[in-house]
C-alpha cells in the first residue's frame, strides 16, 4: 500500500530528475535536439482509473522562446467505454470535454524534448443512466456539470523529423486538496491521471 501511496510523486520526481540529469537547457553542438516553435500533437489516451476511459486529445505547443512553452490542450473523453449496460443499469451517454491552457518550460536532451507545464482550464461532464430493469420503474438520472480543471503536465517529444512521437502525462490537481496519493483512493485526482500517445507534427 505504501508503494502505491508514494508512486505518483515519486514517479513525477524521478522523471524530472532524469530529464534534468540527461538534458541540458543550453546544449550546443551538432547533435542537439531541434527546437520546434509550433507543433500539433493529436493523440489517444487512457485514464489510470482502470483504463476504462478513452481519450481523444490534441496538444498545440508554441515555443516563442527556446525554453518557454505555451500550450493548448483539448480532450474529448468517452468515459467508461466498456461498460454501458450493467446489472440492469443502462448508460445512455457518458462523456467529458476538457479545454486547458498551460505554461511551462522545455528541456532538451540529445534525443528528446521534455516540457513540464502547469495547466488550467475547464471540464464539462455529461452522462445519463437509466434503470433498464423489468422489475423496476424506468428511472433516469442525468448529470451535466462544469468544473475547473488544473494540474501538471509532462510532455515528451521523441524524433527529429517533421513527424515525431509524442507522449503526455497529465496529473489533475482538482479537486483540491488531494486526500491521499494512494492511486486507489482519490477519485478525481490520482485516479484520473491521463496518459496520452500520438504523432506530433512540426508546423514551424
Amino acid at each position: 500500500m505504501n508503494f502505491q501511496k508514494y508512486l505518483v510523486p515519486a514517479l513525477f520526481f524521478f522523471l524530472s530528475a532524469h530529464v534534468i540529469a540527461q538534458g541540458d537547457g543550453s546544449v550546443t553542438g551538432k547533435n542537439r535536439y531541434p527546437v520546434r516553435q509550433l507543433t500539433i500533437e493529436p493523440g489517444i489516451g487512457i485514464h489510470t482509473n482502470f483504463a476504462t476511459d478513452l481519450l481523444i486529445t490534441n496538444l498545440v505547443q508554441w515555443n516563442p522562446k527556446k525554453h518557454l512553452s505555451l500550450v493548448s490542450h483539448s480532450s474529448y473523453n468517452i468515459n467508461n467505454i466498456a461498460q454501458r449496460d450493467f446489472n440492469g443499469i443502462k448508460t445512455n451517454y457518458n462523456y467529458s470535454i476538457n479545454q486547458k491552457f498551460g505554461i511551462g518550460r522545455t528541456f532538451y536532451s540529445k534525443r528528446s524534448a521534455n516540457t513540464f507545464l502547469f495547466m488550467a482550464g475547464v471540464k464539462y461532464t455529461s452522462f445519463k443512466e437509466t434503470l433498464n430493469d423489468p422489475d423496476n420503474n424506468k428511472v433516469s438520472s442525468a448529470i451535466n456539470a462544469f468544473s475547473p480543471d488544473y494540474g501538471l503536465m509532462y510532455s515528451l517529444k521523441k524524433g527529429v523529423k517533421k513527424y515525431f512521437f509524442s507522449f503526455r502525462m497529465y496529473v489533475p490537481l482538482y479537486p483540491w486538496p488531494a486526500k491521499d496519493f494512494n492511486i486507489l483512493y482519490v477519485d478525481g485526482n490520482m485516479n484520473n491521471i491521463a496518459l496520452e500517445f500520438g504523432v506530433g507534427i512540426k508546423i514551424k
Partner: protein
Amino acid sequence: MKNNNGLISRFYTITSALILVCFLGSCKKEVFDTGLTKDFVLQSAADGVSYDIKVGLPGNYNSSSGKYATIYVLDGKENFDLVANKCKEISDQHGVANVLVVSIGYGNDRSEDYTPTKVSQVTGGAAQFLNFIKTQLIPEIEQRYRADSSRESRVILGHSYGGLFGGYAFSVDNKLFGNYILLSPSFWFDDLVSLQLEKDHRTDIKHRKQLVFMGIGEAENSGRMQAPFEAFYQTLQDNYTNIKLAKNIASNLDHLGSKDPNIVQGLNYYFKNR
C-alpha cells in the same frame, strides 16, 4: 555552466516544494479527542469474529443521568474521527445535545459483512452482521453507556457498501434504526437487489416515522451509481408518508471524494431534523 546549475537548482527546489505541499495536504488527518474515546472488542457469537468498537462520548457526557442518541458508523476505522468531531461541532452550532458515536471496525471483510446476497465467496453476510449489531452490539452499548434505547434515537451511517448495508437495514429490519445516512450506496449490487428488498418490505414500513439522508458525488459516472440512487430516493419520496428525506449531490466529487462532504451534510441534516 553556472547558469545551468542555477537553473537545475531552481527546478529541483520548485519540484520539491510542490511535492512537499502535496504531501502536507495529504497528511492532514482528523483525530477525535482520545480522552473522550472508549474502545473494546466484541466477538460475534455467530462466527467468533472480533470487531473493534470505539465509542466517542460527548464532551459533557454524564454517566449518571440523561440519555443520548447514538450514531453507528460503518467503516468505522476510516470514518470515526471525522464523524465524532463533526457531531461535536454541529451539535455545538445548533445548541443541541451531542450523540454517542459508535465506530464498528472490521471483523470479516467489509464486502462480506455489508452485502445482502451471496454472489461470490466474500459477499452475502449482511443478515448475520445485522444480527450481530442487533443482538450483541446495541445491547452492549446500551448497557455500558447511557444510550437511548428507542429506535428514533439510533442512526446508521454508511458509505458505498456501507450505504448498501444501511439500505438493507432500512428495508429488512426497520425497527432497529429510525435514521439513515446513506452515502453513495452500492444499490447496483446483485442486479439491484436492494430495490427489490425495499419493495418486498414496503407495506410494513412505509408509514413508520423515519429520517433518511442520501448523498452521492456528482462525478460518480461509473455507469452504476446514479440511477439506482435516484430510483431509491424517488421510491421513498413517493411511497413513504412519514419520512424526513433529503439528498445531496456533491459538486464535482467522485465516489470517495464525496464521502466526507456528504458525511458533514448528512450529520447537519440529522441534527437539524431529528
